[in-house]
């Protein structure tokens, strides 16, 4: 395992200098073959890149420096993510870095922090997230996986699903029901479990690309020590929810659509329809939607830069970005003619893969809170419409 070196002092850099530093770092270190991967990478594919980031102290932008993170301001975190996305950097198995780490830093015991955080940075612990269940998807608070205290151990029974890359993980953090009755959001706790615990079974689910991105994870009398509870018992829901604050802006990042629009342009040129006036009109509308999305994204980013927190209206970004992404790939399908039905990219060029990107885009309006759930939230929390 590579031990992270002390990261450079990013605070000393201005925003634009930092942006340049990120670009330089990516250009110098990102493995060429992992750029813009067509599917979510497994640990064995992503490990090298993970360890490169770790060894240079670039792995955990949001963590404080004292825990080995980059300690970036909101403004610099926005730049970090923007440049990574713009570059097409490969997405890591990052649940430990993005979700668990910040939660432990805020709610974990000193012992938990000193034990787990370094192992995330070193790549020794690869985490997966056990939240959703077959009957608790959009309605996550209905979860029924249960943990009962038996002496010094929690005994876990139940099933999780949509667990991204669970087959690669050696640890899972999960929400479990520890009390019944009352509001369903109450009585939920946050537990940590090693994936090699007896009683855990992992079944990969093929996604629509027939790639094993998700798993079902079954818990059959799985025992973990009492001390694997994070935070207070029965208070796991609000802890897990609070984590989705700042980060929700990234679900609305324009980069995914920008990338897709660039590919649409490339495809249109390849197919000879770039100068077709009807296509041009359609493309211009998409380009304007993207430009306005950029502007809207910046208004939310400005709030973060001013130190404000984001309200529920940030859901507007997620809805618009995911649906724009889909409209762009829908347009690809419309111009691709027979290529729209083929499995492989046109002429073997990964950048000419309308069908693949179209299928990928299907997920954007489902995961991370479906468009329907986001609209429900906006109707109630932002517009104050009655239920």
């Amino acid at each position: 395992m590579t031990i992270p070196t002390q990261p450079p002092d990013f605070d000393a850099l201005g925003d634009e200098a930092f942006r340049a530093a990120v670009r330089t770092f990516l250009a110098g270190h990102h493995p060429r073959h992992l750029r813009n991967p067509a599917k979510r990478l497994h640990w064995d594919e992503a490990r090298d890149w993970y360890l490169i980031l770790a060894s240079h102290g670039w792995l955990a932008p949001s963590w404080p420096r004292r825990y080995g993170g980059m300690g970036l301001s909101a403004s610099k975190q926005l730049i970090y993510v923007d440049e990574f996305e713009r570059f097409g950097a490969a997405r890591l198995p990052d649940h430990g870095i993005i979700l668990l780490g910040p939660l432990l830093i805020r709610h974990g015991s000193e012992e938990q922090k000193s034990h787990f955080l370094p192992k995330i940075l070193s790549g020794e612990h690869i985490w997966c997230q056990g939240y959703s269940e077959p009957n608790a998807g959009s309605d996550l608070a209905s979860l029924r996986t249960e943990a009962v205290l038996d002496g010094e151990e929690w005994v876990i029974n139940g099933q999780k699903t949509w667990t991204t890359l669970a087959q690669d993980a050696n640890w899972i953090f999960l929400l479990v029901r520890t009390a019944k009755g009352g509001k369903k959001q109450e009585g939920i706790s946050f537990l940590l479990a090693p994936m090699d615990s007896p009683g855990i079974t992992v079944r990969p689910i093929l996604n629509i690309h027939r790639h094993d991105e998700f798993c079902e994870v079954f818990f059959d009398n799985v025992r973990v020590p009492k001390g694997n509870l994070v935070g207070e018992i029965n208070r796991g829901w609000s802890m897990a929810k609070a984590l989705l604050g700042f980060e929700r802006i990234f679900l609305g990042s324009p980069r995914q659509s920008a990338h897709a629009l660039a590919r649409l342009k490339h495809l249109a040129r390849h197919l000879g329809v770039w100068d077709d006036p009807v296509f041009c009109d359609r493309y211009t509308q998409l380009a304007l939607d993207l430009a306005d999305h950029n502007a809207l994204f910046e208004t939310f980013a400005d709030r973060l830069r001013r130190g404000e927190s984001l309200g529920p209206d940030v859901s507007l970004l997620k809805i618009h970005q995911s649906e724009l992404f889909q409209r762009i790939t829908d347009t690809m399908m419309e111009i691709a003619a027979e290529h729209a039905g083929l499995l492989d990219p046109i002429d073997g060029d990964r950048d000419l893969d309308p069908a693949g990107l179209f299928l990928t885009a299907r997920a954007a309006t489902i995961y991370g809170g479906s468009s329907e759930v986001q609209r429900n939230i906006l109707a109630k929390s932002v517009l104050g419409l009655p239920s």
Partner: protein
Amino acid sequence: MSIDADRLENIRMIRDSAQAIAKRGDLRRARDWRDRSPGFDRAVWRSMGDLGWIGLRVEEADGGSGLGMLEFCALVEELGATLTPEPLIAAVAAVRLLGRNAGSDRLSGGRIVLLAWQERTGSLDPTGGASFAGGRLSGCKRFIPSADGVDEFLVTTESGLVLVPRDAAGLTVERSLGQDGGHLATLHFDGVQGELLPGDAGRVLDEAALATAAYLLGVIEGALALTVDYLKTRRQFDAPIGSFQALQHRVVDLTLQAALTRASVESAAACLDGGAVGAEAQAAVSRAKARASDAAMLVTRQAIQLHGGIGYTDECDVGLYLRKAMVLAPAYGGAALHRRRYAALQSPMDEVVDEP
């Protein structure tokens, strides 16, 4: 355009007979043949021959069933609803062109011949790609479905039709994988010996385009039926999700598209059966195929969304409908192509705008 009661009854019987092979709600065969050569079942093909489906559009005098486009579309719609993998549309087109030369072996399903007409993407021109001179065929044809499992190709050229066995010397078959788990072939002819037959593929391509629209209508209905069932059974927030008004209204809009597609396909079939030719027939076909292609993509996309996470998995059948639509929406011309053709036909608007 009204259809008389006897004919309606005939069409109902054809639909019933289709259930023997393509039972609504049962996608096991479709799933089973994915990514497996030849992508369909020759035993089922024989049954199709026995049922008279292959020669459906061949005159009775030539050994066929002599049925109309309404019957053909009704049958293919049933096949679409179950994602039946056998390449019936391309075979029906071939034997129809062969006419009295089709022969009982092909009509009964003993030998499988498919039409190979296409050179370029996004085109309905059957004359490009292959040329015939001095008794030899050269060039290439693309996008022939399930070519692994067939015996012959009927190749369109500017000079006429050429019948070529799959194992002919000088013929190379290159495969591309389809999103639906099937494969599409490119045929390369390098001086292949063959016999020239008379025939003009134009009308037959229109019939195949319309039949493809009918298959897509089946796809739409299959995806919609799955989705409505799912909405009735899946619960979230302590209620069946089908009770949520936003989802209800969306599925109503998809139902409307299904109804428009049915009306469009059936009226086009009636138009062709009524003897329409030329621009009138082409406009009717283009209208139906444009509608079916767009509606199939819309409905199957939305069907995924309405299924939520489960819809994005390979084990959920709804994705099979989407991936079939991805292959067939552009086949025999996609929506944009057919809209352009509709607009280019003489005074297409007079069909609908006839102010006195």
